[in-house]
């Protein structure tokens, strides 16, 4: 954040030359920055993946597939052919029936059940219950009901990124987790933005004793052990994860306030603002034409760098077991669950980490790009 301030100090120093809008110039420069453009594309794709993905995914994020607990990622459909007979055998064992014959043909199966006593047709539910099979129906009854032939469909599912320790599709969970992580990142940033800008601008405009007092207060807050407060907030608001991040945003505005105050103070003294004042432009006009455009730069940079910070913080909380309420999830929760299984099921950490790191990378590149774009010395 500090480097953001520095760069934009200079930005504030030179007002936009006539004829070119500051924004248009910045935009042009930004588009020239390949890393930032790539970052934006990646971010857009991931956001789309997370927002739209759960609607397109065949698996609800909280659906527990009891047959597929901790399945490794695979391009092939589950169940694997080799596992079918075993799964059927297990189901029948629970029904206390013998499996006489079992065959799979394409997407349908046929199984012959045998017992010493007549078999209750209800027993097909043992088969239906399995995630591997669907629509079992009795096609033949032999031996006065002691032998049943059951046919049905093999239920094929795709788990591209495998399933987690509770038998839920990891990819869908990554999408839903991404929604939460991005949401809390944006939300907390927004809250800190609103408070920070308001506080900083007031302090900057008022100046003098008010400014002094307000900034002393910020200094006091800076000395608070932040982690401790976050933990307490979680204990208070544990019910509502979004609320926690609103609260975190309410604690994280200090940097923003400092930046905005500094900018405002500096801008107030600028010749072009004073000139505008002398020309009789009202406060509103000065704000709109001079202050806000010049504040925009540092604020935008702040935002892009704040979001990844919050997402990291969320993951830290998740590691401490203070994450979002199950069955909802977040990238932080997924990664910390993965970290516990790093030896036995590495894919559980690899996939969420890819999305997590890619997003943070993208945000950082965009932030850097924006900062450079808003830095006019490069011209």
């Amino acid at each position, binding site marked *: 954040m500090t480097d953001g301030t520095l760069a934009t100090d200079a930005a504030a120093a030179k007002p936009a030359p006539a004829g070119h809008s500051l924004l248009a110039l910045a935009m042009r420069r930004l588009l020239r920055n390949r890393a930032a453009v790539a970052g934006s594309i990646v971010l857009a794709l991931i956001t789309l993946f997370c927002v739209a993905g759960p609607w397109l995914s065949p698996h609800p994020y909280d659906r527990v597939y009891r047959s597929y607990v901790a399945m490794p990622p695979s391009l092939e459909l589950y169940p694997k052919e080799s596992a079918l007979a075993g799964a059927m055998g297990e189901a029948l064992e629970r029904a206390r029936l013998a499996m006489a014959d079992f065959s799979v043909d394409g997407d349908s199966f046929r199984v012959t059940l045998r017992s010493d006593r007549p078999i209750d047709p209800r027993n097909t539910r043992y088969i239906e219950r399995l995630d591997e099979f669907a629509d079992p129906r009795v096609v033949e009854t032999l031996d006065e009901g002691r032998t049943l032939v059951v046919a049905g469909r093999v239920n094929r599912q795709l788990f591209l990124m495998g399933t987690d320790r509770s038998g839920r599709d990891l990819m869908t969970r990554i999408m839903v987790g991404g929604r939460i992580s991005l949401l809390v990142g944006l939300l907390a940033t927004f809250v800190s933005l609103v408070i920070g800008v308001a506080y900083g601008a007031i302090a900057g405009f008022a100046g003098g004793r008010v400014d002094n007092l307000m900034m002393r207060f910020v200094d*006091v807050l*800076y000395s608070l*052990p932040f982690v401790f407060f976050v933990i307490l907030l979680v*204990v208070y608001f544990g019910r509502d994860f979004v609320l926690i991040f609103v609260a975190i945003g309410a604690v994280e505005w200090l940097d923003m306030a400092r930046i905005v105050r500094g900018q405002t103070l500096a801008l107030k003294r600028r010749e072009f603002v004073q000139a505008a004042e002398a020309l009789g432009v009202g406060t509103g006009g000065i704000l709109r034409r001079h202050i806000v455009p010049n504040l925009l730069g540092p604020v935008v940079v702040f935002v892009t760098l704040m979001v990844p910070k919050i997402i990291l913080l969320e993951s830290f909380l998740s590691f401490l077991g203070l994450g979002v309420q199950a069955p909802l999830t977040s990238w932080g929760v997924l990664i910390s669950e993965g970290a516990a299984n790093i030896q036995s099921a590495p894919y559980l950490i690899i996939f969420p980490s890819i999305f997590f790191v890619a997003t*943070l990378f993208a945000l950082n590149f965009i932030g850097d790009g924006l900062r450079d774009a808003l830095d006019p010395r490069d011209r």
Partner: protein
Amino acid sequence: MLTYTLRRLLSAAPTLFVIVTVAFFLVRFAPGGPFDLEQPLAPQVLDNLRRAYSLDQPLHVQYLDYLGKLVRGDFGPSYVAIDFTVGEMLRRALPYSVTLGLSALALAIFGGVAAGVFAALRQNSAADYSVMTVATVGVTVPNFVVAPVLQLVFGLMLGLLPIGGWGDGGLAHRLMPTVALALPQMAVIARLTRSSMIEALRADHIRTLRASGLPGHVIIRHALKGALLPVISYLGPAAAALVTGSVVIEKIFAIPGIGAYFVEGALNRDYTLVMGTVVTLAGFVVVFNLLVDLAYAALDPRVRYD
């Protein structure tokens, strides 16, 4: 400078007072108490405990009592780790955390500045991009991922380093935790140094020096002096981030520092331990920020003590 230092230290007193007050009431209003255990206690026993720890007194009495003791340097007894007073626990744990934190800070500064300068001097080369990519990875990968990976690779696969514990406090035990803790901050510092170094190299006085044909390392030294300022002003936030990181790192590497007290204290509602940790850290932050400001002033002739 002395008066400035004294004034800053004096002005820390009200700051600490506010922190103590806020923290005291915050922990008290959290649901549950230190004696809500998985195996519940008989009501009579609970009464005895509350009496023994003066928890049966009105809250403002407890608060004044606590303040009074705190002023005399008494942090009170721990409610959960009852064999020790909070003062003892902090005194015992602090050296581990400080050792770990300072080595991580040193590593982050030296490693980060070196990498940043290296990248800045080769701006837009392949070396620059790879250093910056690694640095960005450092910022983005949580340290609770880095730490187990280090343990797996260097502890279990290569068998080079012990996986956990402080042992004799030797380098072997300290190496992995220090690196894991320093990595994210090292990455931030590298990025900071790079951008400010590039800026500094473009400055007029450096160009003049260059034009006058001074050797390269002299120019770098001059440029670095200015380029370090943003790094130094980042040290405050860096120290705070190290504190947060140590909570994770100390847990994973089983290091008996105060990182655990933070979380455990809050989760166990060990009121006095939480308060002790908060006060210690706040004091630490105040002193550290002062040091940073002094260092900043020493490097930047424009800053004066006013």
